[in-house]
């Protein structure tokens, strides 16, 4: 049967919308309130509390733990120091993305890896001959994201550690109201934020402590719909939505390399052999054929299309996750995979895969929109990601 997360006893009574979504075999709230609007705005203006327990989590331990991870992922793990968190992708031998996630170095020989897809077998098989043990701790570890401008103040009320010292993409083992947790200065919203990791058995007291401390600051439990808007604004891609992991691809064309996903910065070709290195080195030479870019639809163009139908512009109420054609140069130049209205930026934005020829920021393109049952093309342009990049994100 589907599982509920360790926070379900708290989240279920809050879920007034009765709208739940599946995530990795668990159910989590799509939105708690009847619409997700207030939950989204909490991420950007106060603080939102999100249940991210369904993430797959692996504990990697041993003298060769860093070697194992370096063998699997594209970034250099050996170069990290305890207390650091790395975002990275990992590939198959053909250099095509299998998954992406974070690696937290908890100690010299101890890591916690998160992923969107199950990866125990892949890690274990790659550990052959190495002194590194991989354990699936997905069910045993509960996780929350506290995201938004007030997140630091709320957390500091009850955290044992001085959070002013916890820099972007760093992690610390500490306590929350005496309960042992690890807190990472990470998130999936592009805002100031933290992720809190704890034993599943301590989930409810951790939730209660955060709600109690956060209430004076306007903390709002937020669901996946709000998160989806925020992560698009932050230009963060989502597996299964924005790319097909190589293991699930039915054809070669469905796969993507890190270069094609704008993740060149995560590929360290100087590193000693890792899975997919040869293919990636070759691709780095010849430049990727595809690029993953931001698209901004021009408001005036949209308004004109609707005016033609006698309507004011209508906008999607939630972020969409479908494949939408993008046109340039008289043909289809690519496709958007997620998009929606940014309530903060007041812009209609999308994440898209474009033929590299059309991917330079500023390039004029067109995105398909359906206006009154008719498919139209709205003028749009390629823009730099992320769409929203506040200073506090890295603070």
């Amino acid at each position: 049967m589907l599982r509920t997360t360790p926070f379900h006893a708290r989240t279920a009574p809050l879920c007034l919308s009765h709208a739940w979504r599946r995530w990795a075999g668990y159910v989590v709230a799509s939105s708690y309130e009847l619409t997700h609007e207030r939950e989204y705005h909490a991420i950007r203006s106060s603080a939102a509390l999100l249940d991210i327990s369904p993430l797959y989590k692996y504990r990697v331990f041993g003298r060769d733990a860093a070697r194992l991870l370096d063998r699997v992922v594209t970034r250099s793990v050996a170069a990290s120091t305890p207390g650091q968190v790395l975002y990275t992708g990992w590939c198959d031998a053909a250099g095509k993305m299998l998954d992406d996630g974070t690696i937290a170095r908890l100690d010299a020989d101890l890591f916690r890896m998160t992923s969107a897809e199950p990866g125990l077998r892949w890690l274990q098989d790659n550990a052959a001959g190495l002194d590194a043990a991989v354990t699936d701790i997905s069910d045993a570890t509960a996780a929350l994201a506290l995201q938004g401008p007030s997140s630091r103040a709320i957390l500091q009320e009850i955290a044992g550690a001085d959070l002013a010292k916890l820099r972007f993409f760093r992690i610390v083992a500490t306590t929350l109201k005496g309960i042992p947790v690890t807190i990472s200065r990470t998130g999936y919203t592009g805002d100031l934020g933290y992720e809190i990791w704890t034993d599943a058995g301590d989930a409810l007291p951790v939730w209660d402590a955060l709600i109690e401390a956060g209430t004076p600051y306007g903390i709002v439990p937020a669901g996946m719909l709000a998160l989806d808007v925020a992560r698009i604004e932050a230009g963060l891609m989502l597996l299964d939505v924005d790319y097909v992991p190589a293991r699930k691809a039915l054809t070669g064309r469905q796969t993507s390399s890190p270069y094609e996903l704008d993740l060149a910065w995560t590929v360290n070709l100087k590193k000693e052999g890792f899975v997919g290195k040869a293919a990636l080195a070759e691709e780095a030479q010849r430049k990727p054929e595809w690029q993953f870019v931001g698209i901004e639809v021009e408001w005036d163009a949209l308004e004109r299309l609707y005016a033609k139908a006698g309507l004011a512009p209508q906008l999607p109420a939630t972020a969409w996750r479908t494949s939408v054609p993008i046109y340039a140069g008289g043909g289809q130049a690519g496709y958007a995979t997620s998009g929606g209205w940014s309530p903060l930026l007041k812009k209609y934005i999308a994440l898209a895969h474009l033929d590299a020829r059309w991917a330079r920021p500023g390039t004029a393109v067109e995105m398909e929109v359906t206006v009154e049952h008719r498919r139209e093309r709205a003028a749009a342009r390629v823009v730099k990601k992320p769409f929203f990049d506040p200073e506090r994100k890295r603070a």
Partner: protein
Amino acid sequence: MKTRYDAIVIGAGHNGLVCAAYLARAGKRVLVLERSDRVGGAARSEEVFPGFRFSVFSYVVSLLRPEIIRDLELPRHGLHILPLESTLTPLANGDYLAQWSDHDQNRRELAHHSLRDAEAYEEFGMLMYRMARAVKPFLGRVPPDPASLAPRDLLGLARLAANLRGLGADQVHALHKLLTMSSADYLDEWFECEALKATKSASGIIGTFLGPRSPGTAYVLLHHYMGEIDGVFRAWGFAKGGNGSVSDAIAAAARGFGVEIRTESTVARVLVRNGRATGVALESGGEIEAALVVSGADPRRTFMQLVGAEHLPQEFVAGIERFRFRGSSGKVNLALAELPDFSCFPGAGPHLRGAISISPSVDYLERAYDDAKYGEVSRQPYMDIVIPSMIDPSMAPPGKHVMSIFVQYVPHNVNGGWTEAKREAFGDTVIDTLAQHAPNIRSAILHRQIITPADIESMVGLTEGNIFQGELALQQMFFLRPVPGWAKYATPVSGLYQCGSGTHPGGGVMGASGRNAAFAILGERP
């Protein structure tokens, strides 16, 4: 007045009916002659016990070709395929392995047995899916003969090669392994959970006289995934009203095209003059002429009994004699006063709407085979159980149930031959085995119907009771089915064709043999 027919089809099994329908659709006047009192052959439903309908022999719709469903408009003629979604494997330790259709639920369940298997399962599925996509088009075509230089064969081979070229190197290597390995060995490369390996490898032994450790059985694993390619189409499941309603729907479609179907009309012989089929002689006396005779009977019955070796080349006769049947399966159909209560999964849960597979380990299956190798019914047989009334309540009176138990191994040539006592002992073995997992079964039985390979042979006319009209083993598949050089539905007797499961691709309520045969006869490409 004497009606003239263009074609006579012998046997109203599902392939014969499909072939007849396609021929009639192309404008031929077709007569189908059936020995028994109803259509369907081994795909029939019968009220064996008052108020209880049994799918007497075949019991699920497997891989029924979507193009047949479309071409013959079978839903309009009453075909309704209901989903059969899960498989429960009771284990010796009181636990169970369940396979569910929901991805998340299935993964959770597998992870409970092995986290690694839960992940391997998806990778395995993707690999099989890709290979099945390359191989599947082959099933819907007249098989090209690699020993032939005829343009059509070369074209067919080229097309197959093009399909295979689309595969990655790892898939080509895997395909080679599938064609050469045993299913147990192949699954050992992927999984560690015994019950999972056993339940999966069971699909490779059905209808063959081979065990899960016999080389060549791995290939059939692929067939399961061919069904998945049509997954959207949902051609796998349980036919409302039992498998007889598949035959009834095809018969209705055939009649719609003008086919005449005569039941209780037994063909005694195919009339052959100067190497040409000219019609058939009926057992009741009388002859019916037609320029085309199409046999839905199995190859041995067709050539050795209906045609006669004297009309055939010696090497062809030798080929037919070498074609192996070796029926290895039987059935027990039960009318039940109440549902079985499985100790590993008590109560009336969703698991009773799916298959229940008695295949706790590969060793269990191999031991079952060991008994059969030496002429005995397996003491602990492999069983594939469904409860049709859980899916279609109209199969039994309200609150009552029917249960279909497919059993292997039940050798056709059992030591000492089949007797009434042997048949009852076989039935007892099945009930005893089931009672180990569902102890209430004995008291729930209102009626039992026991079917041995000998019964299958006498009731439906399948030689040695082989459910596929000849073992689906690699040495007699594709361009070798049933005889090398004669895999294209035509026979050494001009005007005589075959359309049964004994031809490529054979097996299951698939209809592909009947359809391919019709296209071969009409000289068209399917």
